[in-house]
């Protein structure tokens, strides 16, 4: 087994008495495609929030590539190579799509010039290419507010990828995308991830997606990792079928 890229040890956190993480150990390995599944409110998103510094665990540690990142700010963590896409797209609504992307590129390249226009960014072609890959290049010049949720979702992921991260954390990447398109989107996404050599973690409730795209699955239930393994192993587990998938 390869060296763990993200390694969470004994995470504890609770909200108003509800334990969202109660001694979680979870590792993400280089080039992994890890899906986290579990019942609603089980704390899946909490894991992403802790890994990206949005929440600070009550106890426990998270290491990224050997460095402890527990309790660091999202900004600090992002700069070290963990990017995140959101369940509800988080975009700059009053900017155009390409501007969103260029801000991402400028952040990555640490552009601080107060003089050079963003629109003249050298990263423009690269960003257009990324939008192209995600299938949203045709709306590049539009203001985000004008776009439907599905497209925003794709741009949200593209924006995270603009940072050229080592790990991409996604929260239900295809929710809001029409069911005809979601496979197409995931196919593209995986291609991009492979191309950029990005490790991926995604929280998912669509078992079809998990089955098709995850390499490993962790089941998060009542604040604990109930079972971890390949999709086939995990989805075959009777308990998981009963409690998580609801068969």
């Amino acid at each position, binding site marked *: 087994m390869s060296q763990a890229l993200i390694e969470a040890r004994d995470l504890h956190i609770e909200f108003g008495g509800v334990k969202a993480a109660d001694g979680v150990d979870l590792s993400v390995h280089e080039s992994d495609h890890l899906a986290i599944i579990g019942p609603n409110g089980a704390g899946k998103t909490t894991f992403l929030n802790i890994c990206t510094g949005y929440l600070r665990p009550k106890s426990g540690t998270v290491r990224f590539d050997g460095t402890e990142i527990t309790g660091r700010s999202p900004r600090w963590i992002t700069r070290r190579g963990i990017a995140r896409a959101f369940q509800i797209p988080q*975009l700059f609504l*009053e*900017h155009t799509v390409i501007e969103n992307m260029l801000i991402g590129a*400028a*952040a990555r390249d640490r*552009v*601080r010039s*107060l*003089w050079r226009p963003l629109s003249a960014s050298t990263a423009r072609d690269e960003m257009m290419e990324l939008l192209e890959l995600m299938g949203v290049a045709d709306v590049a010049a539009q203001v985000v507010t004008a776009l439907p949720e599905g497209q925003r979702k794709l741009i949200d992921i593209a924006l995270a990828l603009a940072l050229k991260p080592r790990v991409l954390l996604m929260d239900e990447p295809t929710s809001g995308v029409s069911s005809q398109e979601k496979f197409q989107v995931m196919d593209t996404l995986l291609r991009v991830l492979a191309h950029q050599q990005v490790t991926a973690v995604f929280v998912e409730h669509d078992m079809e997606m998990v089955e098709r795209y995850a390499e490993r699955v962790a089941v998060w239930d009542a604040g604990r990792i109930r079972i971890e393994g390949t999709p086939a192993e995990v989805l075959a587990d009777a308990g998981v079928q009963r409690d998580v998938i609801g068969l």
Partner: protein
Amino acid sequence: MRGGRFLLLGVVALIALMPLFAPWSKTFLVLAIAKGLAVLGIVVLLRAGQVSFGHALFFAASAYVAAFAARLLGGGELLTLLVIGALGSGVLGLLVGLFVVRYRYIFFGMLNLAFSMVFYAVLEKFYHYTGGSDGLILSRPSVLGIGLERLPFEYTLFYVALATAAVLGWLVHRYLNSAPGRALAAIKTNETRLEYLGISARGTLLVAYVISAMLAGVGGTLAAVMQGLVTPEYAYWVRSGEFVFIAILGGAGHVLGAFAGALVYEGVRMYLAVLAADMWQLLLGVVLLVIVLFASEGLVGLWHRISGRFAPAGREAS
């Protein structure tokens, strides 16, 4: 766009020539430009969705810095005073900024207000140093080493102010379109995402804050030199409110709107005070209400609406 540019040039030329036909208008125009610069500072922060209700702080601070500098330098030099004033307000902007950029919206606005009121109170209280409410006299500085009489000095000051406004307006325009400038606007819509891109929202806002403080500072120095006197009134909260008012009047978020707003505001205010000395405040209030209720995109928006030649205001403004 080309038509707009010609129109802009025409208006600037008209303003540049105005004092030749109406000599008294120099004072008026210099003050309008000075306020316009402070308003430009407000406009910069409005990009991030933040409203400073205390920007008169920087307007006043630079005016006092210039007055003290002039005293130390024995009269001083106009351009030196402008630079010193801007630096002074810039340093103060950095200090205050380090504190206020941690807050947003109402807290941001009110903390700015609090700082300006503390400064106002200090100016009034420590009157052995600041001259109290009488303020400090700022004698006419030389220009490039030449001591000028009132009339040539006023013309010089006017054209210096006009040129300063043009240059700074252009610089701000560039800044707002640069990467940090666009990131600033992103604070307004999604600060969280900004942090998730590895950009410090506070840092971005701090840069903007210092820039905006310096803009207000240049305005304050110009006003002080024009008036020959600085008083704590420069820092009073009503003046800060006025800046915000003008920013909205001109069209929030627009560089040209700041100056257009300042010109119109000063003009309206002056004529109201002359024509209706008893109720100019009331009429000004009504004007403000009408603008907010019926033309909240301000003069710039109004112009777009009338001319109908430009893209929708949202895009044009950027």
